[in-house]
């Protein structure tokens, strides 16, 4: 039988050294008794450390074990040293043991580590400082931790309250911060701690005011703030009276007769949400159309979207580009072609020698159609009724701009512009006369983004540029003719 005496309740290094030497000497867990110096010695045991001789050699344990053991050793259960040694012993022949959450030793040590971390967390939460002194003020708290966590929990307070001197007094050990380093001293009695603070009455009235008596959930409160902590929380004296009066207060809120409505104060400004711009815009201009379209409910797509994304560009534009519908980013920003497809379009316009600032850019459908998938929105192709419902806006934009040429980007745009389903590949690359408007059909820039193969991407990009150049040439020719 070996009796090991550790220097303190939290002596992890001592435990580690002893455990290593015991294990290397093949001392079985049942042959070791663990005690702490100054603690009550067990019956029939000596206070001396009877470690076996140091042996050459070393062995590995998973890093996770060290992490678990460092936490579990702070547990107040006197059996923790033996349990940790037993787990260490078993780990030497069973390296995967820590993965076995169902093993009683693993479960036991994990539960201890969890309890320690929970207690540390509760200490961070429930310590209440009281201000001492008027000139050189010092903040002092009294706390009764369940486990040996003061050393573990203290650095948190040092980093948080770096600019004020504080002390946390506990029965086991006290921590002090002077603005430079943490010092630990022996535990003290509660009577050493201050008993009040000038702000506690204010804090209590906040606690009472933030409580909603109509939704009493005492059990939920007690699960998170167990009664054992109440004696050191200044606000806890309010709990019982608040519960006692809750039903009455809530009942009164329900039963009270309605009072005469309060006469609202005179508003100093007009309410801001409603911008009155209808009258200021001349009818039929793009600005007026955009304003009118913000409230469009012609199809159900408005419901899930953020906003109507209307066309943008100069009223005098000779070229009008029509895309499919706004995407995720366009929906958020309220502007067409500002997402990845917009960047592709910008690049292509530049390569084709077209200045985007001179082009009117819009979409066949002006709300974003999507299905939410977790944190993203999956783009959905608009269907024919949606395209038809939105076509009025395209028609009115067309009438307002009267461009030389309309370029339809992709199948949805082609369907809207030409009024029928139009295959891109058979129609692209040539000017089409449609109801007196010249139309060019090409792909949508997002098609280029979707191509997986770099070679195909380069080829298709070139075809796209070629189509845009047809548009550029047409505009140059008609400008010259004029």
């Amino acid at each position, binding site marked *: 039988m070996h009796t090991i005496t550790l220097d303190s309740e939290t002596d992890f290094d001592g435990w580690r050294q002893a455990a290593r030497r015991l294990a290397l000497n093949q001392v079985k867990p049942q042959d070791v008794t663990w005690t702490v110096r100054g603690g009550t010695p067990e019956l029939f045991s000596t206070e001396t450390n009877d470690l076996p001789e140091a042996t050459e050699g070393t062995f590995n344990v998973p890093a996770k074990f060290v992490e678990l053991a460092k936490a579990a050793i702070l547990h107040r259960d006197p059996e923790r040293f033996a349990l940790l040694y037993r787990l260490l012993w078993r780990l030497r022949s069973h390296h*995967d043991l820590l*993965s076995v*959450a*169902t093993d*009683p030793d693993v479960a036991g040590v994990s539960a201890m580590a969890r309890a320690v971390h929970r207690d540390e*967390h509760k200490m*961070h939460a*429930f310590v*209440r*400082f*009281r*201000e001492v002194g008027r000139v050189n003020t010092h*903040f002092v708290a009294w706390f009764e931790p369940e486990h040996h966590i003061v050393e573990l929990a203290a650095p*948190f307070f040092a*980093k*948080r*309250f*770096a600019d*004020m001197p504080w002390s946390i007094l506990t029965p086991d050990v006290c921590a002090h911060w002077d*603005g430079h380093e943490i010092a630990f001293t022996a535990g003290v009695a509660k009577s050493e701690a201050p008993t009040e603070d000038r702000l506690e*009455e204010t*804090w209590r009235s*906040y*606690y*009472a*005011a*933030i*409580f*909603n008596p*109509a*939704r*009493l*959930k005492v*059990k*939920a409160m007690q699960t998170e*703030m167990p009664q054992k902590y109440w004696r050191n*929380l200044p606000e806890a004296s309010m709990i019982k009276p*608040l519960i006692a009066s809750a039903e009455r207060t809530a009942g009164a*809120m*329900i039963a*009270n007769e*309605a*009072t005469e409505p*309060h006469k609202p*104060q005179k508003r*100093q*400004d007009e309410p*801001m*949400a409603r911008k009155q711009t209808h009258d200021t815009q001349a009818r039929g201009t793009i600005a007026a159309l955009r304003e009118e379209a*913000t409230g469009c409910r012609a199809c159900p797509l408005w419901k*899930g979207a953020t*906003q109507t994304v209307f066309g943008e560009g100069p009223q005098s534009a000779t070229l009008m580009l029509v895309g499919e519908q706004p995407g995720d980013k366009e*929906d*958020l*920003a309220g502007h067409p072609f500002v997402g990845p497809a917009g960047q592709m379009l910008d690049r292509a316009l530049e390569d084709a020698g077209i200045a985007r600032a001179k082009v009117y850019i819009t979409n066949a459908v002006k709300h974003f159609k*999507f299905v*939410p*998938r*977790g944190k*993203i929105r999956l783009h959905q192709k608009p269907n024919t009724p949606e395209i038809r419902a939105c076509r009025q806006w395209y028609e009115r934009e067309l009438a307002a701009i009267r461009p030389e040429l309309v370029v339809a980007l992709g199948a949805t745009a082609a369907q809207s512009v030409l009024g029928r389903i139009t295959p891109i590949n058979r129609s692209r690359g040539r000017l089409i006369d449609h109801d007196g408007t010249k139309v060019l059909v090409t792909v949508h820039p997002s098609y280029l983004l979707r191509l997986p193969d770099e070679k195909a991407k380069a080829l298709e990009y070139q075809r796209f540029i070629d189509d845009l150049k047809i548009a550029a040439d047409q505009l140059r020719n008609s400008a010259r003719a004029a």
Partner: protein
Amino acid sequence: MDVQRKLEILADAAKYDASCASSGTEQRDSSDGKGLGSTAPGMGICHSYAPDGRCISLLKVLLTNACNYDCLYCVNRASSNVPRARFTIDEVVKLTLDFYRRNYIEGLFLSSGIIRSADYTMEQVVSVARKLRDEHHFRGYIHLKTIPEADDALIAEAGKYADRLSINIEMPEETSLARLAPEKDVRAIRRTMGRLRLKLDEAAERPATKARPPRFAPAGQSTQMIVGADSASDQTILKTSANLYGAYRLKRVYYSAFSPIPDASRALPLIAPPLVREHRLYQADWLMRFYGFDVGEIVDGHGSGMLPLDIDPKLAWALRHRERFPLDVNRASREELLRVPGFGRKAVDRIIATRGVTSIRVADLARLHIPRNKALPFIVLSDHRPSVRLLDAAGLAERFRPPAKQLGFGF
């Protein structure tokens, strides 16, 4: 009026906002010796709990409860007779620092009634954060309510100082908001949420070549929906949530059971708040976000559009999809395990680690913190297989329902 009286009024006015989170932000502390405060690593810290079961993490107050708006569900609506108060900027700053030094709170959650204009109100709210951060070097947590339609520069500044920003969507349906809060505009709310997301995305992107984008609300944005003030079904509520999570990458949607308020409007149901319903909605929200459930599966498509109140939504789903069970815990995929009643995410992690080494038995359930009676009818373990008759039995659902309470006699 003294500060304590103001605090009572302005905390009372703020308590119907359920959010009190202080989690998910960047790591900060004051160990450089300049300033005060830190953020909690990982999850936030709840410094206290009120008897309503809600955590108290932040000093949650309004700057003023005077409001131009007349939202029927709101305690601060223009026509309410509640006492009014207004903090000065310095009063909120001082209160925050005083409470923080005593370790009562993680930081400040500041909102305000709408006074004068959106920009004026937002500017007042931002001024408090600016003073805390720039003058007092406060490193604790700040949550600011964002006023829809506020100027972009003010929103950018709010994001510079705050950890989290939020705008409440209030009602699951646009029509309800139009009826109950005539001055509010869902479209303006959504546009501002969209603006926030663009700024959040920008701050999250770290272009290799350009200078770092400006800091913007590292704990993201959240919102709140009031449950039970209108007739929207749970399905409608969850669909709205799914839409908001996808569109604006919200960190959280808070559900707040509509609760009787002092001097309430008679146009609304004055009944005890539907707390169980609120709880079921949170569970369903979790299923959407962490358990791979689609909004369409959570609520029974053939029913009333409501979640059952007596059993949790995952159990209800499993009872509707018995053909998928029993599931062999030692073989099933992670996605399948997450759908077993009583299996939480941590338990599934532990199961997957454990079964790589040894098989799982009935006795292990307790160590995995899995409620045995709830899970056993749906799973196969190396020493357990539920009887086929049990899974097919009409009475299976009854096993999980809490026993009906007999009406008491007055005695």
